[in-house]
């Protein structure tokens, strides 16, 4: 907390501005100090040191800034080039005028200082000094002479009476003080103009020394506050031989006006010579002060350049960084507002922009999440549907396929998402029929359709109930003229349902038929046999023959009806199917063999493909199918002979392996009106047929997952075609089996 406050107070422009103000103040004091004003004069050295120290600090500060800037420049930091350019520009702008001012200031300064000194003034002062000295020299000599006379008068005066005489002489000579003393400096007597002066002004040791050498002393002396005086000291001859020599020491005041003039001349001369002597140091000092001020101005300009450039470039740098952040996908970047100027407006606009982008991103993310949730929801719903659902876009590309669709179609559709519908058979050949059946319906002109598709695949015959609809477009339009968002196709595998319904219906029919017909048959047969047994022997020949024929017919027909009822019963309640791997070729061969002994001329034309694989089927039922078909063919051909072509082959269609069996005759063919429901019970063109033969065949084929259809051959005759699915395991077994048969 304290550190933060300290850092805040010592950073930014405030401390530097304060430093500059202090520096300017100290410069002002410094320039005053050079004028030798008493207070400033005392502070001069301190001010100089403070200023130099402050300048060094400023240089260090700028140096640090410069190093930092150069480092940023080398690192290609955003804004560093602009900052450097601004700094250089500011420095150049500041340096040029300051240098010019500095140059001319120095010129003026030196000339100004030089102009203070004039040889004539100096000479005048010298002359004034000489004049003053000369004017006092006469007085000095006069006073010396006067003192010597007084000394002569004192010579005979003994020490004891000297005071009185001395005072008299002092008054006479107008001396300020007269002292009689020995050469060693012992005072004998003294007389002073100032009655309060107790201690006389003694001559210095140097004066006494001069007197000891026999030289009198007379000199003008500035005695400070009391003004100029003339000091005269002369030696007195000894009073008696061997006695100590005495000295008369006298102080004469200089006339006040003369003293003042002398002081003035002395002071002026002294000041002038001092100033003249200080001329060069003064120039140095002024140059130093001016240089310091120049340096301060320059460094201030440099620092201001750094500061301004940083202030100016900071928002630009922020903007550059912000732009980079936005480019990198960080839309939460907010920049600090630099102020209310144009840059501030720019930064505010940038912040608004990023805010709006961030909001849009947020909305997009939200929408995506909602869409994802919806998609997941739909996927979950679709996944749980027992119906297959496919969606195609307007270009026929598969978009969605639920699990049920894959299960029903027997193909993994997940890896085909994004593929065009037409391309699906390439990946899954099993879908060929399905796609072919769908394509005619995928017409924008048919917005809603329903169709029952019959497919033949590895699972055998499949009946799909399909419903399709156009999906609304992205804009919600469902305009048939403009392709919308594609198609949705929903389909159900109703094979088992149809089979079950049909089985149930026919089972009921057969059960009722058996119940209604079979019950009266036995009494009819028994009654007929009883009639025959009772009356045949008793009746005459012709009647007996009639009876015999009639009862025989009844019994025969009842038997036939019983057979028929049994057949119905079998149809309604078929025995449990027993599946095993059987070879179709072998079954065909076995069954055909049974017909070789027929009375009628039958020719079988068999084309059995040895590559036909085994199939999983109930061999007994397959034989029944073949029997029914051959019987059907024989009946169609009539009693005059029959030519039956039986072919088996293994063919691959749409990737599904199956065995195709065809039984063709050369009969009259199937009437067109019967072709549609030939395989329904009770449909027959033969006078003696039960109408169940082909129905049973169809039932067995469908129980095996197969498919049956009939075709009239162009050259005459009919062909019953059966396709039975092949399990994919052991494809070679049948081949070996078939080869064994051949």
């Amino acid at each position, binding site marked *: 907390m304290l550190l933060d406050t300290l850092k805040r107070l010592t950073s930014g422009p405030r401390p530097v501005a304060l430093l500059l103000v202090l520096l300017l103040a100290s410069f002002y004091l410094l320039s005053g100090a*050079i004028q030798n004003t008493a207070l400033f004069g005392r502070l001069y050295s301190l001010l100089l040191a403070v200023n130099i120290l402050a300048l060094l600090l400023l240089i260090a500060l700028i140096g640090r800034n410069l190093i930092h800037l150069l480092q940023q420049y080398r690192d290609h930091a955003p804004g560093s080039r602009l900052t450097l350019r601004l700094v250089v520009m500011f420095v150049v702008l500041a340096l040029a005028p300051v240098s010019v001012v500095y140059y001319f200031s120095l*010129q003026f300064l030196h000339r100004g200082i030089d102009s203070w000194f004039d040889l004539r003034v100096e000479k005048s002062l010298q002359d004034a000094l000489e004049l003053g000295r000369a004017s006092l020299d006469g007085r000095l000599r006069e006073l010396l002479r006067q003192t010597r006379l007084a000394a002569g008068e004192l010579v005979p005066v003994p020490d004891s009476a000297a005071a009185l005489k001395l005072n008299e002489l002092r008054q006479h000579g107008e001396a300020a003080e007269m002292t009689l003393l020995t050469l060693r400096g012992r005072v004998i007597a003294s007389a002073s103009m100032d009655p309060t002066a107790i201690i006389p002004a003694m001559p210095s040791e140097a004066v006494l020394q001069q007197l000891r050498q026999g030289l009198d002393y007379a*000199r003008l002396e500035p005695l400070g506050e009391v003004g100029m005086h003339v000091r005269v000291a002369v030696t007195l001859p000894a009073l008696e031989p061997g006695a100590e020599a005495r000295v008369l020491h006298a102080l004469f005041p200089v006339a006040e006006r003369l003293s003042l003039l*002398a002081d003035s001349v002395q002071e002026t001369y002294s000041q002038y010579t001092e100033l003249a002597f200080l001329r060069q140091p003064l120039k140095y000092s*002024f140059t130093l002060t001016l240089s310091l001020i120049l340096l301060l101005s320059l460094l201030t300009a440099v620092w201001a350049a750094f500061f301004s450039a940083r202030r100016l470039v900071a928002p630009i740098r922020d903007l550059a960084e912000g732009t980079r952040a936005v480019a990198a996908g960080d839309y939460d970047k907010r920049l600090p507002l630099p102020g209310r100027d144009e840059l501030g407006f720019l930064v505010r606009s940038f912040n608004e922009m990023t805010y709006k982008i961030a909001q849009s991103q947020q909305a997009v993310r939200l929408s995506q999440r909602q869409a994802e949730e919806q998609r997941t929801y739909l996927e979950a719903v679709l996944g749980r549907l027992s119906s297959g659902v496919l969606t195609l876009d307007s270009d026929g590309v598969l978009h969605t396929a639920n699990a049920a669709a894959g299960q029903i179609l027997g193909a993994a559709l997940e890896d085909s998402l994004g593929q065009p519908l037409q391309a699906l058979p390439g990946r899954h050949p099993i879908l060929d029929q399905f796609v072919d059946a769908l394509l005619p319906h995928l017409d924008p002109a048919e917005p809603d359709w329903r169709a029952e598709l019959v497919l033949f695949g590895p699972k055998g015959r499949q009946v799909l109930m399909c419903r399709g609809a156009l999906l609304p477009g992205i804009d919600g339009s469902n305009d048939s003229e403009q392709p919308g968002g594609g198609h949705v196709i929903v389909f159900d595998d109703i094979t088992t349902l149809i089979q079950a319904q049909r089985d149930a219906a026919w089972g009921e029919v057969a059960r009722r038929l058996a119940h209604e017909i079979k019950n009266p048959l036995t009494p009819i047969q028994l009654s007929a046999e009883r009639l025959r047994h009772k009356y045949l022997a008793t009746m005459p020949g012709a009647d007996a023959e009639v009876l015999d024929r009639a009862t025989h017919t009844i019994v025969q027909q009842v038997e036939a009806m019983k057979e028929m009822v049994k057949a119905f019963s079998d149809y309604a309640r078929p025995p449990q199917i027993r599946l095993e791997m059987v070879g179709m070729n072998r079954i065909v061969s076995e069954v055909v063999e049974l017909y070789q002994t027929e009375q009628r001329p039958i020719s079988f034309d068999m084309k059995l493909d040895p590559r036909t694989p085994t199939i999983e089927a109930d061999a007994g039922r397959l034989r029944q199918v073949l029997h029914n078909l051959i019987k059907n063919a024989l009946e169609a051909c009539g009693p005059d002979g029959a030519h039956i072509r039986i072919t088996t082959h293994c063919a691959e269609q749409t990737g599904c392996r199956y065995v195709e069996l065809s039984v063709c005759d050369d009969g009259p063919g199937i009437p067109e009106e019967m072709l549609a429901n030939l395989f329904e019970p009770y449909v027959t063109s033969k006078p003696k047929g039960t109408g169940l033969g082909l129905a049973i065949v169809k039932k067995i084929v469908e129980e095996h997952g197969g498919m049956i259809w009939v075709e009239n051959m162009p050259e005459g005759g009919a062909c019953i075609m059966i396709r039975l699915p092949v399990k994919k395991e052991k494809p070679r077994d049948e081949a070996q089996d078939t080869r064994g048969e051949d």
Partner: protein
Amino acid sequence: MLLAGWRRLLSALALCLSSLPVHAAGFEVHAAATSLEDDAYQLTARIGYRFGDEVLEALDNGVPLTLQLEVEVQRVRKWWANETLAKLTQRHQLTYHAFSDQYLLRNLDSGELTIHPTLGMALSELGAVDHFPLLPAEQIEAGEDYEVQLRVSLDIEALPAPLRPVAYVTPAWRLSSEWYTCSLTP
């Protein structure tokens, strides 16, 4: 013109910094001793003052010189820094009086003024320190060792302001004696 001025300044500075004056100027305490008079210790010392030409020129041109005598009385401690009991200074101002062609020596502490016809006389007067009172006798404890340190120096801060920067960087102006030590004896 400006360049010439700078050149002169630089050459003057270089001269000042590079060489001492030929005639060795300097201050030296030749001798010092203490005595006990009237229950007070007093210092007597003899000091030699020699000025260089620059200083003499300045003096003759009316620049007053302030000379400072610093005296310290210390109690000697064996295992610790000496304890300073008294710090005394005496300042004299020496000026040249052109009108009378004499040198004035003023004791800045007492205000006493002496006038000397020659500089030599003034300096010998200045160099004779007699009866300089140090401290009362009662401050001195028996059994302890005491010593007196003294030195004299030219006070650059008392020079006119324009001369000070030059004086600080010129050896001829930085005049000071070594510390002279004598024991405090009665």
